[in-house]
């Protein structure tokens, strides 16, 4: 089994995928309505795409290839509105958030499709427990070696991205104490975590062939890494983010990734080393558990700082690139949010602290998704 060849794509082009929750408007539990929604949308012209996902209570929307933050924002908004008007006709709710607050995973149903059924047979209950909702961002790369440089370079910013997008404090009706509990479900998969430290495409192909010859994998889709190359698109795909509660937040996180990528591609500021990954899982855990207040250990200096400060200083460091890309205003907003401790996980907890039951929290999530708006 050979790895497909890397189809170069426009540098810094961006594509965003959001996995969304489909809920009933009676009890706000997940509802198996993906097929009905897709059917209702089949006659609508879309800017981008809307696809089924693993279980029938999930749906995925994805933008086309975009270059500008404004385009991402506009496409996400138009997809959200198209989905929203179909959902109103069916009287179902749609919301963001990395987990559903109180669903019972045992009640989920796997979507009827060969790949989903195969995964369900392979992973058993893990497949149903994988009813979690993430944001994936693709970044276009002009060559495979640049893709690998970007992959390892961006891995330093994984904690930043987790803290900014975290929106999964509740699982199975409980407050987990985590800001992003979703990633704990991902870790159960055997091929999750980080990509191996390989910095050129020839070596990566060799690694893939070795893995394929063990019979463990047959395509890149079998790797559930935090960041993985997607050769057929010519992109790397960053997969650690929870789906935010608004498309604006999702677009802002994508803009942050795009700006970081420009900084890494043009300045080539890092000398990559396997040892960078010594602190990787620690940093990742801190971000999932504590969000902005988590500890970030710098891979080279080993300095400890709160993740909020690491985010703020990273945004200062890439300011020039943000101005070039036109993302400076939106990044300034993210920086202010990080320093003030504002994210979706905190917003969700605040809804619940008023004594509202979790069903009402999910209802508030649906309203927030439909209306968008600032934190």
């Amino acid at each position: 089994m050979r790895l497909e060849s890397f189809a170069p794509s426009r540098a810094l082009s961006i594509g965003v995928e959001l996995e969304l929750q489909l809920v009933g408007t009676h009890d706000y539990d997940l509802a198996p309505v993906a097929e009905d929604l897709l059917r209702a949308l089949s006659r609508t012209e879309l800017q981008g795409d809307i696809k089924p996902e693993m279980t029938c209570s999930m749906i995925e929307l994805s933008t086309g290839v975009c270059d500008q933050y404004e385009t991402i924002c506009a496409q996400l908004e138009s997809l959200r509105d198209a989905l929203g008007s179909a959902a109103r006709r069916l009287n179902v709710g749609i919301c963001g958030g990395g987990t559903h607050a109180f669903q019972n995973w045992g009640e989920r149903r796997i979507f009827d499709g060969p790949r989903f059924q195969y995964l369900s047979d392979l992973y058993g209950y893990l497949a149903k427990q994988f009813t979690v909702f993430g944001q994936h961002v693709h970044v276009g790369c002009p060559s495979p070696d640049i893709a690998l440089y970007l992959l390892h370079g961006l891995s330093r910013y994984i904690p930043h991205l987790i803290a900014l997008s975290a929106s999964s404090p509740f699982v199975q009706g409980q407050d987990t104490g985590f800001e992003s509990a979703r990633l704990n479900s991902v870790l159960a998969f055997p091929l999750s975590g980080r990509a191996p430290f390989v910095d050129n495409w020839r070596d990566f192909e060799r690694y893939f062939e070795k893995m394929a010859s063990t019979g463990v994998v047959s395509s890149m889709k079998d790797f559930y890494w935090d960041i993985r190359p997607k050769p057929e698109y010519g992109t790397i795909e960053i997969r650690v983010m929870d789906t935010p509660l608004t498309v604006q937040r999702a677009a802002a996180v994508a803009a942050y990734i795009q700006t970081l990528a420009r900084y890494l591609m043009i300045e080539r500021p890092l000398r990559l080393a396997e040892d960078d990954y010594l602190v990787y899982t620690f940093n990742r855990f801190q971000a999932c558990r504590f969000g902005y207040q988590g500890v970030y250990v710098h891979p080279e200096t080993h300095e400890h700082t709160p993740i909020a400060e690491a985010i703020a200083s990273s945004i200062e460091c890439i300011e020039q690139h943000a101005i070039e890309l036109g993302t400076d205003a939106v990044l300034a907003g993210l920086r202010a949010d990080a320093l003030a401790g504002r994210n979706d996980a905190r917003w969700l907890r605040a809804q619940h602290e008023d004594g509202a039951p979790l069903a009402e929290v999910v209802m508030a999530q649906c309203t927030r998704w439909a209306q968008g708006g600032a934190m």
Partner: protein
Amino acid sequence: MDFPIWPDWPPRFGALLPVGLALILTALAGEASRRARLPTVSGYAAAGLLLGPVLLGSFDASELAGYRSALELCLALLLFELGMRLDVRWFSANPWLFATSLAEIALSFLLTFSALQAISGDTMLALAIAAISVGTSPVVVMRVVAEQRASGQVTDRLLALCALNAAASVVLLKLVMGGLHGVHGGGGIALLHPLYLLVGSIVGGMLIAAAYAGLRKIVGAESEQGPAATIALLVVAVAVLHALRLPLALAPLIGGALVRWLDPRPHLWASQFGSVTSTLVIVAFILAGATANLSHLALGAGLALVAIAARALGKLGGTLAFGDRSGLDRSRSFALGMALMPLSVLALLQVEDVRQVFPEFGERIQAVVLAMTAVLGALGAIATRWALLHSRESRIGDR
């Protein structure tokens, strides 16, 4: 002096003993039904129709009056919950769904009426049975939905259409009875009485909704007192509706729908009634059948079969006619029509209402409706369950 401290011989048990025995046997019938992989309510419905008359047939209505309030409370609770699941906003977002409901109501009424009219030549009888045929049993539908923990488009539409069917059936039958009053008692009463019932039910619904909203303000949404207070509220409602001679079905349904309309938050107290409703449901099936005369069953069988076929055509025709436009594919539109089949406790109660005012006419429609519910109580539950499984909306079938 003679103190009543020693038991009589032979001991006198009153109606309580046979009622209790009937309940145990009905519960066991439900269990047998479950083990046979059928809906539990199928067992209840069948047992209720057999055991009710056999064990309780010898008692007259006054001896059973106390137990009847349990039946009425059960109906009020379920219709209140059903009302809360009826989202009126959905009809404005998806007018084709409302069209589906209208079509299905109109077709089942017209087809049943014309078929019975052609065969029996008795217009009033055909009208009354057609009005009852419009209904879909809320008790059966809600129990099957709860048993399957169903969720999805067919489930949501089934509950919405079931609520509208129940309401339409009650209103239509009252209008038919208004017509009967006209025949027997003059024109004024024919118009005034249905009007009184309708306005009274709406006002009653508003009061129930207001009282519930008040309770919800004081009692937290997740507290234990909420469900208990709601049950008590409906006990009061049943008592008041009784005193005012208003239909029991309409006001709780309207009240529930108003709660949902005015406060779209999730209202989950009703779904926490749990074992209270399941016990009441068993009581309801037993008592609904208690006044039945089994010898009538055969008498009405012929007309009942015709009515069942006409009604089924109407329900399926209605759901298939606008299914696609309302956003449901053909196979699930068909499933939705099948899910609407059950006819049970509410229909029997409606007949009983007629019988109290027009005993002779009531007897005649009872024979037919009894035979209809004998088929559509047990088999209707099976049809509803098939529909939910076929649409893959059961959340227990997939494990």
